[in-house]
């Protein structure tokens, strides 16, 4: 069963900063369930692919450290009751918001905990983040993916929507190490000066994106593979597929009806774009931002937001 593949890949591995660490809250059952999750907002130094050490913030879950600047993921079913308890170990207040689901939630003070409850919305791709610190929270890493599966248990992007054989979540993000250094040193930073120089897919930088888990896009020829792009960064991501055209299914959960067949898919700020990739040929092909300076880490190419697709 392909769903099992997804579950399996989502839970694979535990090495910090080596896997995307999607946390699965539901068992994939069709009936609504109650999901309880605990996140701890923490700051820590992470070793980048080029060896540099950069201070980042994360929402960590109890099941293991999420990756990089980076993130833990939620997968829930439409209609689930979800309770996310956030313990704030940062030096400033934060909150927990999901654009399109809940905004302007109460903040949680440093050292305190607060539970954020919501009913899982219509099936689709979402992301969660901190809404108190503006873009700085996101740039420092307080963001992650949320996938809502249809209530009927189908492998579809939404109830009655395009079906798929496998699915991958590619959560794109970036950081400007000058911001991270300022925050680490207790200083301030003007986001108007933000120019990222590290780029990630699921918190990983190439070639760490290729080492397995759920960021190496493994596919079978003839399959329809769903890829969910979520822009959790602070720049836009024009994602280019080598080897394939894809069908854009929806942008921010609005069905695309005009510009569908694409090899380059723009993922705007704070946006989610779902595509179906009909796997028409075997081979290994890159999938990367065509803002090619984003295929770097600290200016070194090829790192950054470069993903490989492997079809056999």
């Amino acid at each position, binding site marked *: 069963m392909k769903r099992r593949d997804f579950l399996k890949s989502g839970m694979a591995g535990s090495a910090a900063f080596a896997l995307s660490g999607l946390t699965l809250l539901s068992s994939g059952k069709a009936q609504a369930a109650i999901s309880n999750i605990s996140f701890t907002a923490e700051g820590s130094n992470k070793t980048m692919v080029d060896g540099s050490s950069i201070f980042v913030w994360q929402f960590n879950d109890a099941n293991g450290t999420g990756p990089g600047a980076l993130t833990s993921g939620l997968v829930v079913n439409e209609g689930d009751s979800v309770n996310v308890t956030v313990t704030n170990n940062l030096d400033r207040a934060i909150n927990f918001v999901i654009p399109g689901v809940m905004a302007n939630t109460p903040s949680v003070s440093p050292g305190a905990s607060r539970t954020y409850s919501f009913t899982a919305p219509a099936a689709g791709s979402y992301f969660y983040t901190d809404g108190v610190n503006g873009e700085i929270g996101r740039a420092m890493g307080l963001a992650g993916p949320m996938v809502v599966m249809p209530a009927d248990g189908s492998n579809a992007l939404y109830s009655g929507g395009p079906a798929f054989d496998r699915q991958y979540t590619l959560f794109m993000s970036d950081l400007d190490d000058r911001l991270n250094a300022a925050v680490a040193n207790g200083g301030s930073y003007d986001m108007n000066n933000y*120019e990222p120089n590290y780029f990630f897919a699921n918190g990983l930088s190439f070639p760490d994106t290729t080492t397995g888990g759920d960021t190496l896009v493994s596919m079978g020829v003839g399959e329809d593979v769903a890829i969910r792009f979520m822009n959790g960064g602070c720049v836009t991501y024009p994602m280019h597929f080598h*080897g394939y055209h894809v069908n854009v299914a929806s942008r921010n959960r609005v069905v695309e009806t005009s510009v569908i067949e*694409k*090899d380059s898919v*723009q993922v705007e*700020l704070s946006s989610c774009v779902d595509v179906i990739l009909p796997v028409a040929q075997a*081979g290994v092909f890159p999938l990367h931002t065509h803002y090619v300076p984003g295929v770097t880490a600290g200016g070194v190419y090829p790192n950054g937001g470069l993903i490989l697709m492997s079809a056999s």
Partner: protein
Amino acid sequence: MFELKELKMNHRGGRGGGGGGSTGGGTTGGTTTGGRTFSFLRAPASLNVNMNGSAIMADGASIRTWTFGNGFNDDRSVPSPVIEANQGENVEVTLNSMMEHTIHLHGLDVDQQNDGVPATSFAVGGEGNSNTYTYQFVAPHAGTYMYHCHVDTHKHFEMGMFGTIIIRPTDGSTNRVWDNGPTFDKEYIWQLTTFDTTWHSGGGMGGAVLQRYRPNYFMINGKDGANAVNDSTTAITGAAGQKVLIRINGTSYLPGIVRMGGLQFEVIASDGRPLAVPYITTEQLCCAGERYDILVTMPASGQYSASIEYRDIRNGKALGTASTTLTVV
């Protein structure tokens, strides 16, 4: 599974070395037949690499460039030559290079062997590599595509190693966009182009760390300012009522908003595929890697300012605008 080729992750910036091979080779289409306003190479095409090129800006600045070329008197230095083939043909594009380069056939969905990515196939030129390779593919769908070097792409693309591939309909028609598709009277290519000249300094060589792309020249087809107005492959002319096809190619790292001076136009295709539902608009965003084919019906009279406004990927602010004219003649 697969094995990655040598990744060469540790060198920073460009690697040293001289230019590519000599000029020559290739089949030239050359003339501006059909509705074309530009020169082109008819596949099979043969490309060399010129790493001693220069692009002259409207303010007189000479910017070092690297380009693909074949020695024929192309009308552009940057971008590299236009290549044409017909849908369904077996297409061959040969790269000759002493230095390490590739041709990635962007959007043509070629097989892994011909994808032009060193990490998943191989590079042409450089130590241990053959100095020539003929990329082969079957052109799948009539439309607008891109080719570019995929070695140290952030650097080589910026230096000018990119161009447009046009796949004509099966019958080779030059007044129809795709088989049984819309017709047109004139045809232009608008390739989004920006330069961060610090990335071109030192002849494109040197060990500078290339990060934080900050372009300071904003162009159409490698032309800025008055050069974009005076370039007959960029400035749009046509008789009243003529249908003008403009192939917009996202060959800048930045997104650009294309406008025809407020005139309405029809967006008919993107990324080499007809749109499911074409639409009418006065502006079209084209992001890095994307292509859009638009049809403008020339108005009764007048001259308009047609432009590309480049946007910051960070906050959407306008960073610079390249303008030319649309003139009814």
